[in-house]
């Protein structure tokens, strides 16, 4: 893995032009991410969390404010940042190993071979090197996407709702997988999700975003040891607190007995 990098975002504003006028996607975002940490960003649709991730990735320019990685401002995409999308975006006509190798350019063939093998093993898909994406399940395909995102040894890995397209059970397996991968290499990870449990399970901190305009509501630290128990009181407590940010509390449930 690449040496993990830290990320500093100061007073980030982003608006998109419309046919008439513009829409403000992000307002006054401040965020500090420690190198090697795992940050979850949670919010509803339209809160700008994907836009935030894309700005960090360098896919969106034209923003105001500072976005710095180890002190250097972000200016376009780069191999220091890897990204995993909600859809796996594997090229259907390339095998699994060719898809991972696709990310490696300008390296000698032997190096490419060893890195691909290393990362396929990391995601547990060594036996499927020659398979075509069409032959893989959703979870397996996403694992290949993760391997591809890591093969350039990025300093930050960005994950944009990476398990949103998978079924609930696969999702939980993949959460454990990404945890394992992170613990193996300690790359800085920034995960965007709408799944509150996922955010708490994975992150050192949970950034709660509100929408319209997109801004950081609060940042909750999660000081639980891993692996986390989703039914432990502390877990449930944090979940309650985040819930409250989104939903009005149901006070004392009133029950009737007849």
């Amino acid at each position, binding site marked *: 893995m690449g040496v993990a990098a830290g990320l500093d975002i100061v007073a980030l504003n982003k608006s998109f032009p419309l046919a008439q006028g513009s829409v403000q996607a992000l307002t006054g975002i401040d965020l500090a991410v420690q190198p090697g940490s795992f940050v979850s960003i949670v919010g509803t649709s339209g809160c700008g969390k994907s836009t935030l991730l894309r700005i960090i*990735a*360098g*896919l969106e320019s034209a923003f105001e404010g500072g976005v710095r990685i180890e002190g250097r401002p972000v200016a376009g*995409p*780069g*191999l220091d*940042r*890897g*990204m995993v*999308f909600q*859809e796996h*975006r594997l*090229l*259907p*006509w*390339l095998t699994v190993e060719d898809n991972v190798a*696709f*990310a490696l*350019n*300008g390296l000698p063939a032997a190096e490419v071979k060893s890195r691909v093998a290393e990362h396929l093993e990391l995601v547990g898909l060594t036996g499927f090197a020659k398979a*075509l*994406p*069409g032959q893989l399940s959703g979870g397996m395909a996403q694992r290949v996407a993760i391997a*591809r995102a890591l093969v*350039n040894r990025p300093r930050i890995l960005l994950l944009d709702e990476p398990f949103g397209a998978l079924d609930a059970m696969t999702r939980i397996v993949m959460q454990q997988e990404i945890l394992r991968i992170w613990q193996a290499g300690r790359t800085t990870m920034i995960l965007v999700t709408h799944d509150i449990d996922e955010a708490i399970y994975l992150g050192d901190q949970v950034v709660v975003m509100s929408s319209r305009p997109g801004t950081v509501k609060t940042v909750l630290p999660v000081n639980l040891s891993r692996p986390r128990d989703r039914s432990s009181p502390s877990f449930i407590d944090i979940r309650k607190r985040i819930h409250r940010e989104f939903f009005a509390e149901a006070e004392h449930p009133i029950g009737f007995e007849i």
Partner: protein
Amino acid sequence: MTAEAALAAADTGPGLPLAEAGGAVIRLTPSLGRAALYVALPAALIVLWQGLFELGLIRPILLPPPTKVAAAFWSLTVTGELPRHIAISLERVLAGFAVAATAGLALGLAIGLSRRVDRATDLLIQLIKPIPPIAWIPLAILWFGIGEAAKVYIIFLGAFFPVLVNTIDGIRQTDHRYVELARLLEVPRRRFITRVVLPGALPAIMTGLRIGVMVAWMCVVASELIAASSGIGYLIMDARQLSQTDVVLVGMITIGIMGKLLDVLLKAIERRLIRWKPTYQGH
């Protein structure tokens, strides 16, 4: 045993029930049923055609009966005349198509990959595209004489535009999500073209090639209006001048059959090249 019980007892295996004979059910197996459906329509048409002739409802000079056409088919085949004409037309079509495919792919790539080239060539292409190959015949004769070059040129014109247009479309349709991915991974341009754009465009390109071959074959008649002394188009025109409608029909049907065979061949090639793509076949 009741009839129903007998039927139920004899009910084994898949397939549509076709008839009942003494309690045993004769079934049309799925593959036989499929084959029957495939040829049913043309077969029915031929029967109708012969029937109308037998009833005296069609004058043979307007439309000779299938029996006469079949006889003409036979005599032209055994004398080797028909195979010879087919071979010559095929040669011309393949030559014209080869040039059209090469030029269409090359230009299509250039235009698809570069906005500049697209802008520079668009007007000229849009102006020339609607001109039917037949309209080019006088110029073709002036430029190339009445030999093979003029005929191949007409065929080339027919096949070129489908290949060009579909190649451009295929490239334009490149999934923008892959484009974004390539940006993120800093994939060099050449690799981007060979690993992302071209494979993604291949289905559309194959469609363009298949249409191109079809049009090339359809242009063979037009091209052989240029002083041909052989070929299927020539056979048709010659028969027309001698009022041999049965031979005209032989020529037309041959064109249809050959077209079908070419398409089958190309479909097979397409399947081999694009093994990764699941397609909708209807249900």
